[in-house]
């Protein structure tokens, strides 16, 4: 009852009612486009759930997984890896100079996973049956069951990891302190779950060696997916940070601003080294299956475009950025990194999948599928904007400065050089 009253008072007295976002929506061009996308998405949602998959998609029996799985799920999960990468860097490896990057990364990861589950409903349909694989009929020999269970658990972990920001906003000190005490446990749980399902998403394709092009198919697919998720997450943290600096600069406090360059350069260095390692194991994958001759075909050119243009080049850019302390170059490299992961996941799930089928039977998404994906991404950005407008994400709540972390150590909020 007391908790109810606290939340009620907080909402009544809070700036939420007076906030310009709620009180008066400014019809800027960006807001108009956002509103159109959201209305369009709502219409497509109704069409999909009442008309079925055939109404809005180009999916068929040869191509049961389309852009909703290839982009929304595969790319969404990989790009949400920033959550486990940043929180493990800060809490497990003790790199406290990245502390201010943890909350934005956790928020992005939470929204990313929430939208993955949201988007999954569009593909599988019958949302009321979503809990079935976890609670009712467990297919314990299936990789999809493992992915489903991990995503379900990890979404909960990310939600709990993010709640301190909401509790600080609502002024619920006791419960906030209790959840902060769980930080280390949740971080370890998050890393374990991410290791499991990031790799399992790659392992899903092990069952289709005849469908996936040999250049992308490998016994090492789970390893590729897991390793690539690391630099995908780091690239996403840098990329999202640069957008936040541009559009949400006023929400950031001095600590966040002073630490941000160190985060960018530190993550650049790590991403660069991981990318070079990834490049190495991709070449080993080519060698072990003796797939060299495919490199001299059209598919080979596309494979090299992905591997050189979106792994080797950004790896080198990150390395030069880390050496020269060039934050701008690192931000540019992060765009390549993010696009590279999107390209890789789309190649594996759509482009190089069913590569032997005649072109008439190949899949290309309908505009409604693409519009639904755009709607889901837009929804994520709107929720992100709303949460960062109210909750302490880019700044520390004044009541909790010089706080203690889960180990009882005083978390340093002062800027330190990253190198």
């Amino acid at each position, binding site marked *: 009852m007391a908790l109810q009253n606290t939340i009620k008072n907080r909402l009544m007295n809070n700036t939420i009612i007076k906030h310009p976002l709620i009180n008066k929506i400014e019809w800027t061009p960006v807001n108009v486009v956002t509103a159109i996308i959201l209305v369009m998405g709502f219409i497509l949602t109704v069409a999909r759930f009442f008309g079925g998959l055939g109404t809005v998609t180009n999916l068929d029996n040869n191509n049961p997984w389309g852009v909703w799985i290839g982009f929304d799920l595969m790319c969404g999960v990989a790009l949400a890896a920033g959550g486990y990468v940043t929180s493990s860097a800060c809490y497990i490896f003790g790199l406290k100079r990245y502390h201010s990057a943890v909350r934005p990364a956790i928020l992005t990861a939470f929204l990313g996973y929430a939208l993955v589950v949201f988007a999954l409903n569009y593909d599988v349909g019958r949302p009321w049956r979503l809990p079935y694989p976890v609670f009712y009929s467990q297919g314990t020999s299936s990789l999809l069951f493992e992915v489903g269970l991990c995503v379900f658990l990890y979404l909960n972990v990310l939600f709990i990891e993010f709640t301190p920001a909401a509790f600080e906003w609502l002024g619920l000190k006791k419960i906030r302190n209790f959840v902060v005490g769980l930080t280390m446990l949740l971080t370890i749980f998050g890393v374990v779950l991410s290791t499991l399902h990031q790799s399992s998403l790659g392992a899903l394709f092990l069952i289709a060696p005849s469908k996936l092009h040999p250049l992308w198919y490998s016994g090492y697919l789970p390893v590729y997916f897991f390793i690539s998720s690391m630099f995908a997450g780091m690239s996403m943290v840098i990329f999202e940070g640069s957008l936040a600096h541009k559009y949400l600069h006023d929400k950031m406090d001095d600590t966040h601003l002073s630490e941000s360059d160190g985060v960018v350069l530190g993550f650049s260095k790590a991403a660069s080294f991981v990318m*070079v390692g990834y490049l190495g194991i991709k070449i080993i994958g080519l060698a072990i*299956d*003796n797939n060299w001759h495919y490199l001299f075909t059209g598919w080979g050119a596309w494979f090299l475009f992905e591997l050189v243009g979106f792994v080797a080049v950004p790896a080198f850019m990150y390395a030069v950025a880390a050496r020269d302390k060039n934050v701008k170059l690192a931000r540019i490299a992060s765009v390549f990194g993010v696009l590279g992961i999107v390209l890789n996941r789309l190649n594996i799930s759509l482009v190089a999948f069913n590569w032997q089928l005649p072109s008439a039977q190949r899949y290309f998404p309908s505009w409604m599928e693409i519009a639904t994906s755009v709607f889901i991404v837009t929804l994520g950005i709107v929720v992100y904007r709303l949460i960062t407008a109210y909750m302490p994400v880019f700044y520390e709540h004044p009541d909790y400065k010089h706080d203690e972390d889960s180990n009882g150590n005083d978390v340093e909020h002062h800027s330190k050089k990253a190198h």
Partner: protein
Amino acid sequence: MEQVFYTLQDFMVHTKGITYLIMGGLLVALPLFWLFLTGRDEKNKTF
């Protein structure tokens, strides 16, 4: 130029041989890349 292998043994000897050579190359290349990456870092005293 695709090489023809008549036995699995031939195939494994060939691909494993190439793989081992690449791994040797990576063992040399990765530390060199690390030196390139950290070449301009300030030296931290570890003692």
